[in-house]
């Protein structure tokens, strides 16, 4: 009995498929749109644009920070491997002071 039923079922699979697909075709999908859906989409797009702006700023600032850190690192490496060998004994502070006070010295000498 079970074998006969199985054979019958298997033979009718193509017909079952045809019937079920016809059932699906007969059922047009619902095209209802939730109330004020377009307003919601526009509001979400606007909020997303705001969030995008902040994300853009954050991204740019992080990029700038990374760039600054890279420059600092490169300068550090450069200074480390090329220690300044001053030809004269004056250091940077003294050079700065001399340059800054050069005009004062010149005016003193003129007097």
């Amino acid at each position: 009995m079970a074998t006969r039923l199985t054979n019958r079922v298997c033979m009718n699979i193509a017909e079952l498929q045809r019937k079920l697909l016809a059932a699906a075709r007969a059922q047009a999908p619902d095209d209802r749109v939730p109330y004020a859906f377009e307003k919601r989409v526009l509001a979400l797009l606007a909020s997303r644009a705001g969030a995008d702006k902040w994300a853009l700023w954050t991204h740019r600032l992080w990029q700038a920070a990374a760039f600054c850190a890279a420059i600092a690192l490169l300068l550090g490496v450069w200074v480390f491997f090329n220690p300044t060998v001053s030809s004269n004994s004056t250091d940077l502070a003294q050079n700065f002071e001399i340059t800054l006070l050069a005009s004062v010295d010149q005016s003193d000498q003129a007097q």
Partner: protein
Amino acid sequence: MERTEAELIAAVLRGDAASFEPLVQKYSPRVFATARRYARRESEVEDIAQEVWFKAFDKLNSFRGEAPFEHWLMRLTVRTCYDFLRGHQRNRESSFSDLSGPETDWLERFVTQPEAATETADAAKLLVGRVLEKLSPPARLVITLLEIEDRSVREIAQLTGWSVPLVKVRAFRARAEMRKILTKMTLDKYL
């Protein structure tokens, strides 16, 4: 005066996001109808529709205006639905043991008197929904487009972005997959 679609699209591209609203209003029924073919829960349908409109807004500059906006939007909708199917494959794991009374009755009627089991019956519609849920994402997409929406292979190729031979191969496999599922369902039920 009502603006044309081309004018609305041009305005959106110039930065006037409000001009997008009439487009959403006009085409949402088609987007929802398509999404309802692939998702059962209303929250999922809404998520798909929302995603479609976000993508449409983001990719609007890729719309060249050579074909109608509706065709371009439908391509986007079908591809979003396909992404949804691929992301929700767990739905395929349910079994046929929990068929409702009317579904079982319809199936039994089909086995004993095939001509008495009409395709217009609600139970048949529920049953086909279950069977479609069991199909793999490409099989479900191709069966829906080819057999249910009655589209041509060329149209499906345009909608999905697959080549024509690939659509044919997938259609052949999809039919075989569906027959396998139907066989399993009937054997599970009657043996």
